[in-house]
C-alpha cells in the first residue's frame, strides 16, 4: 500500500481547498470520503458513502495535505467500491476510455432523451470531433539551432476533438528549434479518466499500454504534454501508483514555451494590437497541483498581452468527463460559476487554459474564447507574420 495512507492528522486543510465542498452541500468532503472511510474500511464491513462519485479528482486535497495522505486516490478506491446503476456503469465504462470514445462514439448531436438515458448531461454541450493531423510548418524556418528532439504527447481529447492544437503546438515547437514527433501513435490513454472514474486497475492497464507504445520512441529527449491532467498523470500516477516511469522526462507545453528562443518573444512583442487585449488565465487544478500556478500569466505577458488577470477558481468543474455526466451537471455548472462571475467583471477577450476539456467547459459558460496557450501563441505569431508581410 502507499505510504502516508494512515497519516491523517484530522487538520481539515483538505476540506478547506476542496472545490466541490464549496458548491455542493451534500458532498461529505475529502476527509470523510478518503482517510476516514479508509480507516473504517480496514476494520471491515464499512459501506460506501453517498456522493463519493461527486469528487472531481482534482487532487487539490492531496496538495493541501501536510502529511501526504493520498486523499484523492483513497477516494478513487472508495468510488471503485461503490456500485452505481447499470446504465451509469455502462456510461462510465465508455467515458473511462476516452481514447476509444473519441474514435467511435459520436456524442455531439445526441438527443436530449438519449442523453438522459445514457446519463449524459444536457447542460454541457459535447465536443465535436476534430481529428489531429500532421501538416508541414507554415511558420517558417526555425529561429535557432536545433534544440533537440521532442515527442508531443497527443492525448485522447486532443486526438479526437482538438486536432488544431496539436498542429499549432507542433509547429511552434518546430519554430523554436525542436524536432517534433507525435506520440504515442495509435489509440491510447494515459489512464487519467479511468482513475478519476474510480477504475484504478483499468487506468493502470491503459497506462501500461501507452507506455509500451511510447517506449518505441528511442531518441526523444522530452515528452511535451498539451493537457495538464495527462501531464500530471504521467508524472505522478505513473511512477507513484502504477510503478512505471515515463520513458523520457515529461514537460508541459507552457513550461516548454518558456524555453522558446528570445527572438520568438521579440517578434511577438512587435504585435502592437495585443497590449490592450484583456486576457484571463486559468491553470487547471491538476496543473496547479503538479507544477504550480502562474506560468500561463507569464506566457501571456511574453506573448504581448499586458492586461492579464489570473483566475480565482480552483477547479472549473470540467474535470475530464465529469461535467458530461448527468449527475454532476449542477456541480460542474456551480464550479464554473466562479469563473463566469470573474469574467463578467474582467470582460476578457480570451482565456488561456491548459486543458482541452476545461477550455470547452469554460468557453461554454463564459462565452469567451478559451484555448490552450499553444493556440494563443500560434495566433500571435501569425499576427506578427501578417504585420511583417509586405
Amino acid at each position, binding site marked *: 500500500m502507499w505510504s502516508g495512507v494512515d497519516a491523517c492528522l484530522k*487538520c*481539515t*486543510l483538505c*476540506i*478547506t*481547498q476542496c472545490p466541490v*465542498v*464549496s*458548491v455542493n*452541500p*451534500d458532498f*461529505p468532503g475529502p476527509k*470523510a470520503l478518503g482517510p476516514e472511510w479508509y480507516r473504517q474500511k480496514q476494520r471491515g464491513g464499512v459501506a460506501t458513502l453517498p456522493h463519493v462519485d461527486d469528487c472531481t479528482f482534482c487532487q*487539490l486535497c492531496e*496538495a*493541501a*495535505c*501536510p*502529511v501526504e495522505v493520498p486523499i484523492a486516490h483513497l477516494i478513487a478506491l472508495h468510488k471503485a467500491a461503490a456500485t452505481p446503476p447499470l446504465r451509469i456503469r455502462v456510461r462510465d465504462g465508455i467515458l473511462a476510455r476516452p481514447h476509444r470514445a473519441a474514435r467511435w462514439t459520436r456524442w455531439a448531436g445526441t438527443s436530449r432523451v438519449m442523453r438522459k438515458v445514457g446519463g449524459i448531461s444536457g447542460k454541457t454541450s459535447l465536443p465535436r470531433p476534430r481529428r489531429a493531423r500532421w501538416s508541414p510548418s507554415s511558420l517558417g524556418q526555425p529561429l535557432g539551432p536545433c534544440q533537440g528532439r521532442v515527442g508531443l504527447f497527443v492525448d485522447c481529447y486532443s486526438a479526437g476533438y482538438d486536432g488544431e492544437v496539436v498542429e499549432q503546438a507542433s509547429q511552434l515547437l518546430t519554430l523554436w528549434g525542436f524536432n517534433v514527433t507525435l506520440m504515442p501513435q495509435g489509440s491510447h490513454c494515459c489512464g487519467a479518466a479511468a482513475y478519476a472514474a474510480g477504475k484504478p486497475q483499468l487506468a493502470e492497464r491503459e497506462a501500461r499500454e501507452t507506455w509500451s507504445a511510447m517506449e518505441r520512441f528511442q531518441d526523444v529527449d522530452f515528452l511535451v504534454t498539451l493537457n495538464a491532467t495527462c501531464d500530471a498523470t504521467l*508524472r505522478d500516477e505513473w511512477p507513484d501508483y502504477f510503478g512505471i516511469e515515463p520513458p523520457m*522526462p515529461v514537460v508541459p507545453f507552457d513550461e516548454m514555451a*518558456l524555453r522558446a528562443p528570445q527572438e520568438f518573444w521579440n517578434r511577438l512583442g512587435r504585435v502592437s494590437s495585443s497590449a490592450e487585449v484583456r486576457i484571463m488565465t486559468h491553470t487547471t487544478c491538476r496543473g*496547479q*497541483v*503538479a*507544477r*504550480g*500556478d*502562474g*506560468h500561463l*500569466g*507569464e506566457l501571456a*505577458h511574453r506573448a504581448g498581452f499586458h492586461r492579464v*488577470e*489570473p483566475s*480565482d477558481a480552483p477547479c472549473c468543474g470540467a474535470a475530464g468527463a465529469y461535467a458530461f455526466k448527468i449527475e454532476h451537471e449542477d456541480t460542474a455548472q456551480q464550479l464554473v460559476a466562479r469563473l463566469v462571475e470573474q469574467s463578467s467583471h474582467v470582460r476578457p477577450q480570451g482565456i488561456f487554459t491548459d486543458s482541452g476539456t476545461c477550455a470547452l467547459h469554460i468557453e461554454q459558460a463564459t462565452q469567451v474564447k478559451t484555448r490552450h496557450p499553444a493556440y494563443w501563441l500560434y495566433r500571435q505569431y501569425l499576427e506578427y507574420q501578417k504585420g511583417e508581410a509586405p
Partner: protein
Amino acid sequence: MATDLVVVGRGPAGLLLSSLAVQAGAAVSVVADGLGTLPLWGGQWDFRSYDTDGAPITDPYAWWRAREPHTSPPGVTRGWLAYWQHLAALWTEMGIAVNPPGPNNQWTVTPLGHLRPTYLAPSWQYTTDKPSPVIFVGVPGLTDFVPTAMARVYEWATGATAYTMMLETPPAWRETWNALNWAWFLDAPGGQEWLMRVLRGRSLPSEGPLLFPQILGVDHAQAFIAELAKTLSRRVAEVPLPPVSVGGIRVQRRWDRWLRHHAVPFISGRVHRAEPDQVVLADGRKVTARVVLATGGVLGGGLLVEADGTVRDAVTGVAVSFGEHDDLATVGYLETTGPIPVVGRMVKGWNPDQYGEGGAMILSTVHAVHQRLMRHSLETGTWR
C-alpha cells in the same frame, strides 16, 4: 523566468515576506509543497498575550521592553509598531479590514467562552477593550460552538451577562455540515437572505453584540457582517473556531489573489536541495534566485522530528536540536542570519503557542530578513 527572490513555503511568513519584496519591486516566486497552513487559524495575529505564568498581558510592548533584552529575533523591540501598521495596511489593500492595532491588546472570545488577549485581528472577529454583555448565536450541528456552555464560562470569567440563542436550520442544511459548509451556504445565492429573514423574526436582547461562530461566508463575509450590523442596529462579529477555520481561508484567498495579481507564480513541488541562490525541486526543476525558507516548524513540516528526538530542517537537513531533553515546543532556529535565511515563528527558545506571540515572531523575522535583502539589493543594484 527572471526571479529576484524565491520564497520556500506559503504560510503566513512566506506570504508576508513575498508581499514585502513585491512592494519593494522584486520579482518573487513562491515554491511550496502544499498549500500552506493558513486555513488552520482564525486569522488573528498575536503579539504577546500571556506572561510566563500564563497571566494575560494587556500591554505587550511594555512587557517586552521590561524584560532583559533577548538576543533573538533581531529587531523585535525596534520598529514593532511600524511593522504592525504595515501589516494592517497590507491587509486592507488586500480587502481584509482590520481592527486597528494600537499600543494595547484587545480581548477576544474563544469557542469555550473565555476571554483572551489578542493584538491584531481582522474586523470580522470580535474584539473589545472591556468585557460587556454579549449574545452568543449558535447554529444546530456545530459542536464547536455551544452557546449555553460558552455563556456559563463567559459569565463565570467576566461577571458580564451572556445571552444565548439558537438559529433554526435552512432547508439545504445537512447534519454533517461544519463551519465551512455554513460559510459556503451563506455565500451562495439565497443564504444571506435566509439568515437575515431568520434574524428579523427574532426578538433580540436589548443589549450586547451578536456573536456568531465563524461561519458568515468566505468571499462575502465582510460586507454581509456590515449589512447585518446595519439592519439589526448593533455590532455583529464572529468568534474564530478551531479548524476548519473560515477566517484563515478568507485570509489565504485574498492573500493568494493579491500575490497572483502582482505576477507572483506559485510553483508546486518539494524542495530537494536549497542553496543560498538556488532551489532544486525533487523532480529536477530549478529556480535560481536568492532563497529564503519560510517552511514552518514541526506543524508546517519545515522541521522534522526523528524517532530519537533529533529535529532536522526538512529542506537543508541541518539538525536544529538534539535529544529528548529539549522541549519540543521550543525547538527552532537560533537566528535568521544564516547563509539561507529562515523566517517564521519557530524561533529557538520561544513557545509561541504558550505565550501567544506567533504573530510577533513572524513579523519580526520577516522584517529582519526583508531589511537584509533590501540592503543586499541596494548594494548589488538588483531588483527592479
